[in-house]
């Protein structure tokens, strides 16, 4: 377990932790996490995972930085407006920690490419802003046996659930997408920036603790957060035998695209999954 002097110094506060130590830091350096969405959730997750020394971090986004993003997407700066989000995020992560490998992916994840994008990563963070992507990521991760963290935010509220093979998946709780037009978009409903920050960091914490094998993950528990009342509530769940992707009689055998941008910042063509 060799570290350079620079690594020992950089990661000393991690290494000092009994539950991390040199062994844990080596696990982090040898691990890989894919963050899907370099937005409100992905920004804090990307910064903290790079800072912690997760050795390889993929960051997926096909969108460009807009002025209205900067209120919460803290990895992007004013000078980044119009730049590809994945490129902007990768630059900051490399500046923060040149010792980690950052792989920007400027692609829209669809049923046709998601399997190949996620396959080399140990853990996936869903930081997308729409239901079609969330269901696509869930299905691809469940079918591929990939642990992942689901996150969703709106206004002052957030929710997160972690999946590992055998635990309840996102679809065990939410069998189908909400009907089109019934959920306001982030652009319509608003989002307090810190809500994204808090929830994205909880997702990053799940990734770190999964890699380190410490503590208790948010598996079989949906964490619901209300930042108006600063209430955190864990709600118990379990694998649903009728779940179409992980239940006893599976009907979803490969990732599929959905035609319903329910919470995207832009009203794109209905058939597209807007990350």
């Amino acid at each position, binding site marked *: 377990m060799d570290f350079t002097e620079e690594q020992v110094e950089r990661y000393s506060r991690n290494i000092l932790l009994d539950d991390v130590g040199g062994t844990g830091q080596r696990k982090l350096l040898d691990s890989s996490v894919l963050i899907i*969405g370099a*937005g*409100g*959730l*992905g920004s804090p997750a990307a910064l903290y995972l790079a800072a912690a020394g997760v050795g390889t971090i993929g960051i997926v986004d096909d969108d460009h930085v807009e002025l209205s993003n900067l209120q919460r997407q803290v990895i992007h700066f004013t000078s980044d407006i119009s730049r590809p989000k994945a490129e902007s995020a990768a630059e900051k992560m490399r500046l923060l920690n040149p010792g980690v490998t950052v792989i920007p992916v400027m692609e829209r994840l669809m049923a046709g490419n998601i399997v190949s994008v996620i396959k080399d990563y140990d853990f996936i963070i*869903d*930081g*997308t*802003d*729409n*239901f079609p992507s*969330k269901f696509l990521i869930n299905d691809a991760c469940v079918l591929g046996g990939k642990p992942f963290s689901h*996150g*969703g*935010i*709106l*206004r*002052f*509220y*957030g*929710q997160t659930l972690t999946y590992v093979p055998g635990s*309840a998946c996102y679809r*065990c*709780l*939410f069998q189908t997408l*909400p*009907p089109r037009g*019934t*959920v306001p*978009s*982030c652009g319509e*409903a608003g*989002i307090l920036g810190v809500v*994204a920050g808090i929830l994205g960091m909880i997702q990053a914490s799940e990734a770190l603790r999964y890699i380190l094998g410490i503590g208790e993950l948010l598996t079989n528990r*949906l964490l*619901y957060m*209300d930042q108006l009342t600063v209430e955190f509530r864990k*709600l*118990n*769940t*379990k694998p*649903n035998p009728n779940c179409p992707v992980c239940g006893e009689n599976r009907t979803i055998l490969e990732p599929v695209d959905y035609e319903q941008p*329910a*919470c995207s910042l832009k009203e794109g063509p209905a058939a597209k999954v807007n990350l």
Partner: protein
Amino acid sequence: MKVTVKLFATLKKDYFESREFDCADGTTVRSLLDSSGIKDREYHITFVNGRHADRNEKLKDGDTLSVFPAVGGG
């Protein structure tokens, strides 16, 4: 039988935060919320006594039904 309904996030602003309902035996999650005026498409997930429950689950006296809207931003 008596069932307490707790609404979360936007639902509690639009309807109420917590209310006790007197309902008939056999009342389900869906039928209680229907009769409360909360439309099917306005909520996304329901828990009974802190455990995930689907909309067809029958309620029992003393149950607490927690109701959440969809939260899908990022």
